[in-house]
């Protein structure tokens, strides 16, 4: 396949991807693959998807020229504003797609995993809009750290199930969602939150997210910028990065994914199989999965979407890591210079650009940052951290 094209029937991206799930789930994965392929080729479905994103999700999100940040860094920086999408991040693109597909497949319920709650809130949102039942699995540790997001989901009519197994965080929420899915796959769709999991999820989620890159490409054209020299996005599972990269993979733009230093599956991981996919994973010498560590819950994942593992392996995209200490600097920098408080996840991308300015990024370089989400959810945490510093 062409880079970031349609994967073959095995759902492989080079040596990564595939489908590593219990037989009980295979029929559902196959059904989903067929249903998605068919829907995505159906102009009526595609139109419904884009109409929903437009009328409900707030798309297109703008590309904002960041004049003051550019001046500060000696670059020409633009931001794709996923923070302005409904529920505050790019997550809505994916869940709108998957819930519409759920309805199309005749299923009445969705389940989802969530870490900090962003994907859970997004799923609950999209489910509420279509009147689908919704259950969200969330690590017990996270339900406590993110009480308000739990309540948000409940307000939206979803049931939140605290997951007490394993490390009781995102990784275990995925496990638990998969276990639940085994029991209810006939009427329930598993609305996974990133470009991960078994085929067709990584492909499907990337396709639902490519609207980011496609829009940005056209918008930068309209702004007279053309193709940027560098496209930067933070990477947890990798959905916002995949979405924006997809719009520029066929251009000379350098693609940079920014991982959290403590969750750097490309930087510190090795190939393995988890959550239904073969990809790069943080694991010990025996193949036991290690816990990721990041101040941003959304990057706190020991794996990465298989397509990113492939893009890294082929060198088409570059993956770098940013430590927790730099992230706060990225967050405050963007806030002060541009009036945009980014999510902690997103602040990784900003922090890398700030670090690379004048070094890896020559003065005057045109950079598109995918502003994957807004920081409102993180303000209390950032406040604690800045106080702790003081």
């Amino acid at each position, binding site marked *: 396949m062409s880079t970031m094209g349609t994967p073959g*029937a*095995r759902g492989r991206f080079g040596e990564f991807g*595939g*489908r*590593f*799930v*219990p*037989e*009980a*789930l*295979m*029929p*559902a*994965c196959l059904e989903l693959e067929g249903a998605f392929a068919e829907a995505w080729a159906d102009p009526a479905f595609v139109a419904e998807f884009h109409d929903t994103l437009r009328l409900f999700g707030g798309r297109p999100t703008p590309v904002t020229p960041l004049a003051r940040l550019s001046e500060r860094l000696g670059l020409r920086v633009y931001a794709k504003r996923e923070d302005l999408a409904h529920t505050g991040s790019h997550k809505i693109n994916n869940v709108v797609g998957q819930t519409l597909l759920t309805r199309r497949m005749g299923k009445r319920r969705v389940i989802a995993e969530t870490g900090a709650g962003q994907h859970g809130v997004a799923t609950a949102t999209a489910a509420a809009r279509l009147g689908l039942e919704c259950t969200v699995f969330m690590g017990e540790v996270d339900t406590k750290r993110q009480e308000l997001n739990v309540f948000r989901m409940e307000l939206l009519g979803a049931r939140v199930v605290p997951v007490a*197994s*394993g490390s009781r965080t995102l*990784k*275990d929420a995925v*496990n638990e969602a*998969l*276990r639940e899915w*085994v*029991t*209810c*796959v*006939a009427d329930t769709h598993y609305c996974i939150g990133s470009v991960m999991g*078994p085929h067709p999820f990584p492909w499907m989620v990337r396709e639902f997210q490519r609207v980011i890159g496609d829009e940005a490409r056209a918008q930068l054209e309209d702004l007279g910028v053309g193709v940027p020299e560098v496209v930067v996005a933070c990477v947890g599972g990798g959905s916002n990065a995949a979405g924006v990269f997809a719009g520029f993979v066929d251009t000379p733009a350098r693609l940079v994914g920014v991982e959290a230093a403590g969750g750097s599956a490309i930087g510190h991981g*090795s*190939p*393995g*199989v*988890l*959550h*239904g996919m*073969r990809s790069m*994973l943080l*694991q010990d010498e*025996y*193949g*036991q*999965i290690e816990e990721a560590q990041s101040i941003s819950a959304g990057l706190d994942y020991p794996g990465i979407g298989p397509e990113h593992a492939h893009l890294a392996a082929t060198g088409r995209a570059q993956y770098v890591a940013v430590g927790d200490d730099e992230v706060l600097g990225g967050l405050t920098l963007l806030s002060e210079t541009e009036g945009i408080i980014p999510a902690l996840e997103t602040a990784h991308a900003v922090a890398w650009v700030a670090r690379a300015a004048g070094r890896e990024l020559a003065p005057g370089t045109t950079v598109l940052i995918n502003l994957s989400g807004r920081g409102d959810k993180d303000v209390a945490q950032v406040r604690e951290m800045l106080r702790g510093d003081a």
Partner: protein
Amino acid sequence: MTSLDDRLAAVRDGGRHALVPYLMAGARPDWVRLFEAAVAGGADAIEVGLPFSDPMMDGPVVQEAALAALAAGTTLDSVCATLGSLDLGVPLIAMTYCNVIYHVGLERAAGRLREAGVLGAILPDLALEELDEWAAVCDAGDLATVLMVAPSTPVERVARLTARSRGFVYAAARMAVTGTASGLGDGVAVVERVREVSSVPVYMGIGIATPEQARDAARVADGVIVGSALVRRVLDGQSAEDLESAVRALREALDEM
């Protein structure tokens, strides 16, 4: 035909319904003693759990056992070393997840297991679509790849799975992860679907906990797999003798048939 096929065919040919307890290697310091107790209680084979940090096909009981085993430092190598030095007298079938095997390397992992006397392996997250490489390695190394058929498996797929399963076909009695449940769920239907396309032995598992369930299962299946119900006893600290009695109760129920 793998060695496991031979051994299990012999069980069936002996007119016996196979009893396959699932136990987690390393879940307790005395785990070998527990395996021996299961054999003494009448097991025809043992499904040897090799712990994985993220066991997506397992319910809370087996998860807990896996975490205990990992905390105790259990690894593929440590289990193989122990098993290799024993002869439990019944076939051993490893049950673990792809990453444990992939991480070691397929050939090396298969070799290790076989050297330790393990005759088969179940990787519940290895889908039919991803099977080729592992199956080739297993076939070459006389390690039986046991595949699972689920209630959701469509008929044409049952045939393909059954054709590629070695030793026996694992008939999942219900749409669920490992655990205890009541009744046989969809187990009878799943077994019948396998029977329609093949004469290989079919063992029923997933949620089979009591002697009564085992007996009912054996009315249609060639064997039963009992996991969480026994692992629960292990985690609760029951003695090897108690475990042996529990296995024996299952044995007797099967033998009543």
